[in-house]
């Protein structure tokens, strides 16, 4: 084994040739996919299976699926990796982070890739449910491709409903019916509550999302869809929503304090709560673990049926170029195709963003067997974009911290919303000053 300088050089040249021409199939383009685990551990394995299938079908590309924690941690890791000069080729990003990433120039528009496929942006987005565009198309450019999406939904324990004389086929449609049902379903032994009428998660991320849902149902707007520097926390529609939520606590049909996602679904599954407001993303897990007949229904309205979308989109960070960018695009299109979209939807409970998925026979059969999944899809007709602003996470936490204060009885809803608005405005101030308040001659 004598390695001469010449053979080394030759080897390097050969390697370079292969690197230049991945079409030969000798050296596949290696890309990474950053993904948070949306529901439970099984899905981390499902994701590995999905990517393995992709790699087998695409010898010129080798994708490594990289588990990156929660949605918030995925954002931190993607940003840190970019700063370190190692951006992943594709990242599954919470749909409401896209606006902030776009403002900071951290994700790239996909328009040229769409155009190269011979489509217009409208044609491309036309394959997805219209409600998803608001969080994916920013300033007329496509920045994200919807991968798995959700809406909040009301889960009902039909057994408990029958037990107290309510009709599970006729679930609460408005806030009055919801409050009345919750009161009826709550069970007490003396002062101690043994069964809560309803459970609502209020932890970070979910709390803000569900308050937005109630505000939407109350005719509110929550944030300015067209401008990233405005939120409407201190408004009558929001005040009504928050007061309704806090009244459920006051009337002792909802457990006081901040409730975690996992604790809420556990309480519901174990029969300690008769209804819960939660993401459709939990649907498959809840369905397969419920030991009672399960019903789901639209989020009850006060003034109108309207909910925000949730879930995540596939994005390509800035700095991903050339072959890696092309490979990323191939992966994105494959993952959001009707077949894969539908498969992932059945595995998780998220609805499939690609409308074509619902035309496939296996999906039709699935919906016939699981009518609850159909409710989630039907509610989409009433869905609007998810809260997204400049610095989405802190602006969201501003209202979630105040929500926590209200639910633990430390503040009145009005006080809380005034404080939340003030905090949010303060966070968005630098952006507002650089945009809406940057006027000619005002320097």
């Amino acid at each position, binding site marked *: 084994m004598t390695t001469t300088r010449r053979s080394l050089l030759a080897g390097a040249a050969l390697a370079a040739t292969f690197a230049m021409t991945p079409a030969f199939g000798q050296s596949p383009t290696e890309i990474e996919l950053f993904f948070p685990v949306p529901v439970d551990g099984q899905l*981390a394995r499902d994701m590995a299976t999905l990517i393995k299938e992709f790699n087998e079908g695409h010898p010129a590309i080798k994708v490594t699926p990289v588990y990156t*924690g929660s949605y918030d941690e995925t954002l931190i890791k993607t940003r840190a990796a970019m700063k*370190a000069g190692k951006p992943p080729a594709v990242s599954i990003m919470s749909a409401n982070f896209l606006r902030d990433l776009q403002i900071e120039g951290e994700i790239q528009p996909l328009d040229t890739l769409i155009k190269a496929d011979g489509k217009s942006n409208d044609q491309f987005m036309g394959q997805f449910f219209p409600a998803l565009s608001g969080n994916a198309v920013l300033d007329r450019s496509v920045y994200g491709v919807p991968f798995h999406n*959700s809406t909040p939904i009301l889960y009902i324990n039909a057994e408990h409903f029958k037990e107290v004389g309510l009709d599970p086929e006729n679930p609460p449609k408005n806030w009055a019916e919801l409050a009345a049902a919750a009161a009826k379903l709550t069970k007490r032994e003396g002062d101690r509550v043994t069964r809560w009428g309803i459970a609502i998660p209020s932890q970070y991320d979910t709390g803000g999302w569900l308050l937005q849902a109630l505000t939407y149902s109350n005719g509110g707007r929550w944030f300015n869809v067209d401008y990233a520097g405005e939120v409407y926390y201190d408004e009558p529609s929001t005040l009504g929503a928050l007061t309704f939520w806090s009244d459920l606590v006051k009337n002792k049909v909802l457990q006081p304090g901040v409730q975690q996602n996992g604790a809420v*679904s556990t309480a519901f599954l174990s029969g300690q709560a008769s209804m819960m407001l939660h*993401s459709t*993303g939990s649907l498959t897990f809840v369905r397969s*673990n419920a*030991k009672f007949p399960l019903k789901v229904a639209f989020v009850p309205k006060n003034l109108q049926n309207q909910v925000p979308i949730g879930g995540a989109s596939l994005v390509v960070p800035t700095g991903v170029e050339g072959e890696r960018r092309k490979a990323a695009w191939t992966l994105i299109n494959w993952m959001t195709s009707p077949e894969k979209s539908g498969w992932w939807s059945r595995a998780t409970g998220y609805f499939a963003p690609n409308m074509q998925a619902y035309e496939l026979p296996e999906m039709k059969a699935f919906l016939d067997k699981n009518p609850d999944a159909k409710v989630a899809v039907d509610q989409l007709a009433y869905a609007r974009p998810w809260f997204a602003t400049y610095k989405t996470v802190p602006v969201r936490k501003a209202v979630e911290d105040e929500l926590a204060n209200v639910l633990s009885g430390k503040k009145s809803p009005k006080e809380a919303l005034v404080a939340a608005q003030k905090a949010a405005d303060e966070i968005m101030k630098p952006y507002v000053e650089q945009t809406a308040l940057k006027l000619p001659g005002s320097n």
Partner: protein
Amino acid sequence: MSVANREISPKLGYGATLLVAALWAVPFLWMLVAAFNPESTGAGMAALIPDYVPSLANFAEAWGLADFPRYGLNTAIISFGILAVQFVTITLAGYAFARIDFPGRSFCFYLFLTQLMLAPVALIVPNLVTIASLGLYDSLLGVMAPYFASAFGTFLMRQAFRAIPRELEEAALIDGASIGQRIRLIYLPLAKPSLIAFAIVSVTSHWNEFLWPLMVINSPDLRPLTVGLATFTRGAEGAQAWGVIAAGTLIVSAPLILAFVLFQRAFVNSFVSSGIK
């Protein structure tokens, strides 16, 4: 260490200790009970007293969800690799700060200590940039590198070395011992309690670390236990199977608990014996 001669009756003190111990033990007890519960979500999940026939189903499921042997190996390499390098660096730095006179010694030492004030989260991006430029991104060495020097450990060793009488070192010096021999044969054996205390703190903190390895590691093969465990405990939008989580957590924490139980005697003995010397 003279609490006994206070006014509180020993019984009361004993009771208080038991209470604190119970508070500390309840989550562990619950984890144990939940891990063997055949039902993962039922009404009995919250019970502290088992009311079921123990089942290993949760362990089987948790074991299948992640490649625990490999993750365990990675975690062990990270924790003990860091510790091995730290032993060298904190001993040498501790000796320098304790015994070698050089201009600006106190200033350097306090500068070193300010590292303790920095929240690790604030260092994620700068550290990652450094790691990437060294070519250590997505490697176990990259996870370990930022911890090779430890302000806390250096402080601990400096204090321990300063407490050792200079005369011992001077006697060795007269016998012709080199600086390396003096550290190895005089200082280190006498500072053993500090080394062990530091080892426990260092190993447990790196064993449990989550965010930094999550940032550095991309390859599934290089994941440590915490990241592997998180794949099924940190679902972003969903429900949680407590039994499986409890079983997984037990699998992850078992090696450390076991090591502590096995070496508890050695730990205590070493404290006692070195203390007497």
